């Protein structure tokens, strides 16, 4: 079960990183700035990848 959960979600840092990316996209969308999310979300993803790579 542990292996399955790890395959699906990764570790806690992985979940936190993706949650932050989705939060950025959701916040921009909900405040009427969805067009900015097109730029901000990929940038946030790349930042998340960099953060995870360093840990």
């Amino acid at each position: 079960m542990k292996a399955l959960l790890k395959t699906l979600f990764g570790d806690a840092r992985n979940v936190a990183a993706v949650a932050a990316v989705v939060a950025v996209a959701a916040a921009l969308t909900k405040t009427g700035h969805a067009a900015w999310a097109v730029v901000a979300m990929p940038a946030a993803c790349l930042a998340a990848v960099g953060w995870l790579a360093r840990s």
Partner: protein
Amino acid sequence: MDWPAFLPLFLTAGVEWVEAFTIVLAVSLTIGWAAALGAAAAGLGTLAVLTVATGGALSAGLNMQAIQFVIGVFLLLFGVRWMAKAIARQAGLKPLHDEDAEFRETRARIGRADWFAAWLVAYKGTLMEGLEVWLIVVAFSLHSRAWVSNGIAALAALLVVFTTGLAIRAPLRRVPENAIKFIVGAMIVSFGTFWTLEALAGAVWPLGDWSLLGLEAFFLAGGQALVPLVRGRRVAAA
């Protein structure tokens, strides 16, 4: 036929099947090829049942927007960690995956194990490595409904890896695993980003599906730009 998904599926599956093959090869030296391949087949059968059951359960009664959001997020969870590990390995922060070392570790783990314990190692190894293939096949298939072609992509990779491995009877050490994981990770993050935002905001991507190519180029270039940055930060900290 879901052609955009074929390549990432084939490459993802290929990398995982290489690792599964290493384990099966190590076990075959204890219990013979027939038994080791039988264990691998049992693992694959379990994965097939899991795929069918998951697809049916997830498809029933959910709206497409919710499915698209869930799939997008799962692809992000999968893709960012593949990209991060590949970048960390390329930057020298983690060792490259070594199939020879994996082979020796599996041989050591089997040790003096009895026939059934060794069989279980091959079964479990195939199942565990195949779980990531399962996740990607289900994710792409729920979106495109192209279950058969996506399954074919995964099986095609299995055929290539196992026939190559059986021909040389040695760990497949020359597969550029890290490069493949980086490229596939970038593809999967691209799909995850695209679908998650589309689920949240509707048809917001400026070039529609063609935006996927732009995203892929961004993550490939950006990911490579991260390598010296990640390497440099750790050197500074040391």
